[in-house]
């Protein structure tokens, strides 16, 4: 309104014209570049944080980057595909170690994702109906998510000690064991790893599924109830199908996180990681830093990246096709 008034009088026309001249509509060049300028910081950050390190990592996997060259690593000689051959030769100690570690990681990921999802779903469904103290219980469930990962895992390390840990003490008091069980070495190391990772992850599943549940219209449940459907049938026929898009993303994210988990074994076992807890990221770290063979370590990392890309692609393809059919 005020602009129109100003433009109506010749005295006001001049300043108004000057003002609009400075506006973006009079700068077609700037208009064209403004979106790119605004995007530039994000693109730069993506380049620096992801793309460049990834390209460098791929390049490292093709050179003989051992202790003899790390001071001047651009001068390391080409290794061709030798680093990949070493990593994939399962008759060789290095390849055999990688294969065993891969197997441990697959088992760890599948069980941890399944447990996290089941616990998250059970808690989300249980806390859906309003009741007194629901807020407090929900907050309590989020403690593992809010706690710094390092502090939480370190506490588990103390609790899982054989002689002084709380876990053996409690099991002993409950007469479930003689209190002499090893949790951090031997075969139980995998059980411990899955327990700690699930404790860390399930609240994310809980949060996500709780948000998903709240988006399902209550009318559906009311109608089903009128038709005589019980809780289990409602969950199977209403809740699960409605949460399908949430679950697709949730399961994928949980799998990718668990498969590339480094913190949990690193903090839980320290430098004394047992074979049963030898997750692949930690295995690659050891292969690189303990034997100073960064070329082979890089090749292992690239193989892991390819595997995760194939799994992700296949998962999205299969679940997408099912969605389209539905």
């Amino acid at each position: 309104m005020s602009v129109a008034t100003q433009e109506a009088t010749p005295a006001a026309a001049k300043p108004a014209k000057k003002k609009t001249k400075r506006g973006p509509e009079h700068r077609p060049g700037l208009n064209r570049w403004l979106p790119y300028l605004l995007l530039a910081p994000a693109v730069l950050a993506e380049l620096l944080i992801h793309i460049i390190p990834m390209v460098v990592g791929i390049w490292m996997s093709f050179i003989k980057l051992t202790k003899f060259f790390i001071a001047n690593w651009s001068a390391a000689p080409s290794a061709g595909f030798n680093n990949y051959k070493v990593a994939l030769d399962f008759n060789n100690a290095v390849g055999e170690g990688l294969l065993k570690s891969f197997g441990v990681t697959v088992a760890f990921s599948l069980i941890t994702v399944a447990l996290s999802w089941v616990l998250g779903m059970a808690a989300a469904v249980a806390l859906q109906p309003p009741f007194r103290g629901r807020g407090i219980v929900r907050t309590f469930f989020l403690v593992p998510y809010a706690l710094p990962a390092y502090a939480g895992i370190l506490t588990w390390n103390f609790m899982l000690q054989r002689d002084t840990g709380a876990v053996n003490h409690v099991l002993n008091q409950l007469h479930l064991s003689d209190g002499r069980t090893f949790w951090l070495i031997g075969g139980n190391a995998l059980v411990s790893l899955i327990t700690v990772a699930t404790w860390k992850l399930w609240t994310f599943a809980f949060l996500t599924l709780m948000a998903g549940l709240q988006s399902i219209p209550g009318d559906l449940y009311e109608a089903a109830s009128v038709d005589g459907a019980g809780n289990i049938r409602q969950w199977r026929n209403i809740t699960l199908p409605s949460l399908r898009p949430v679950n697709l993303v949730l399961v994928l994210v949980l799998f990718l996180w668990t498969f590339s988990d480094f913190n949990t074994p690193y903090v839980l076992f320290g430098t004394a990681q047992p074979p049963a807890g030898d997750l692949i990221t930690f295995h690659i770290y050891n292969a690189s830093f303990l034997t100073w063979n960064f070329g082979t370590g890089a090749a292992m990392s690239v193989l892991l990246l390819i595997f995760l890309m194939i799994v992700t692609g296949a998962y999205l393809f299969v679940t997408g096709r099912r969605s389209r059919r539905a």
Partner: protein
Amino acid sequence: MRLRSFVAAVAATAMGISLAACGGGDKNDSSGGGSGGDQTLTYWASNQGTSLDNDKEVLTPVLQKFTQDTGIKVNLEVIGWNDLQTRIQTAITSGQAPDVVNIGNTWAASLQATDAFLPFDGDAMTAIGGKDKFVPTALATGGKEGTDPTSVPLYGLAYGLYYNKAMFAAAGLQPPKTWEEMVTDAQKLTDPAKKQWGMALAAGSYTENVHFAFINAAQNKADWFNSDGKPTFTGDGNVQGVLRYLDLMQKDKVANPSNAQYDNGTKSVNDFATKKVAMVINQNNADSSIVANGMKAGEYGVVPFPAPAGGEQVASHVAGINLSVFKNTKHKDAALKFVKYMTDAATQTTLGKPFSSLPVLKDAKPVFTTDAAEAATFADVYNTKSKPLPLVPAEDQFESTVGKAMNTMFAKIATGGTVTADDVKAALKTAEDQVAASS
């Protein structure tokens, strides 16, 4: 206008960051490598005392004296052992290195192979006081044989068998002189019902385990590498040496199976200091932890870690901490002055007691203990019963692969499994293959 200002601000900031980055290579000062002036050295010290803070407290007045004497300031950072090797690797890779760094002397040949460290050639060695001031065995750990060392000894360490005098007296025992005596004594002093064990082992620590793999094999006259630097892990002497050490928990049952979770030497030393075990094999710097945990100096004695009857009298590897100068230092002269100062007799005497170290200088006396017998025992082990770990580039790989293999075998024993000589041989073959594949 606002956008233009914003773009200008971004450009100015970017330029500022670039300039700061350019200057970042010389993070200390810009006065060059001359003499004194207002130079500042960056020094990464390893953890030697009871904590990182304790190290800072001990080193700060020593470094201040150096600054007073030379005008060269020292920027100190104390780094824990778990992080030190990775920090050094990162420094080598990035070129953003300190001027002077502490290294574990067993890493010397491996780090030398990176070509990132200043060789102590004739001139550099003269600048730090000449090679003749060092104990020859200690200086020999500075790098590969026949080359100019890239590190020089700073703190000397050796293993000894600590024993609880009261427990031995109560059982009518004398300190052991042979392996067999040690095992017999340990069995007499073991009573799991009373939660008392003959020995404590850091059986989950790969660095400790590999030291005992080395020493026990050396007692069998076995080597881990041949003259070409190739691994020879599976010889009978190596296998039997490793098995003998594992048997302390497996066959002899003188160590608590829980020791398989002890991932550093401090835990086993604490068991000894709190009188849960009668013996522990540790380096002389255990003294400070033992006393800090309440055991009085006269309550324990030390004898050399015994060899089996008829075995080679090797009681330790030549353990210790060395000093290295990064080759890309911009303050070479100042760094060499600092190395000379840290390895001077006066500084060695000052640091020898708080860090419980053995002197690395000829004719110097140990000051870490007032117990003359203990000092003499460690000095004797260090000077006459020690053998350097393999001085080959793959030494670090030997430590990690064999040490971790022993962790796994101890875990198997602790959880009720059995480890035979064939199992040891197979584990050492895997370790050998890993080293070969990574070399």
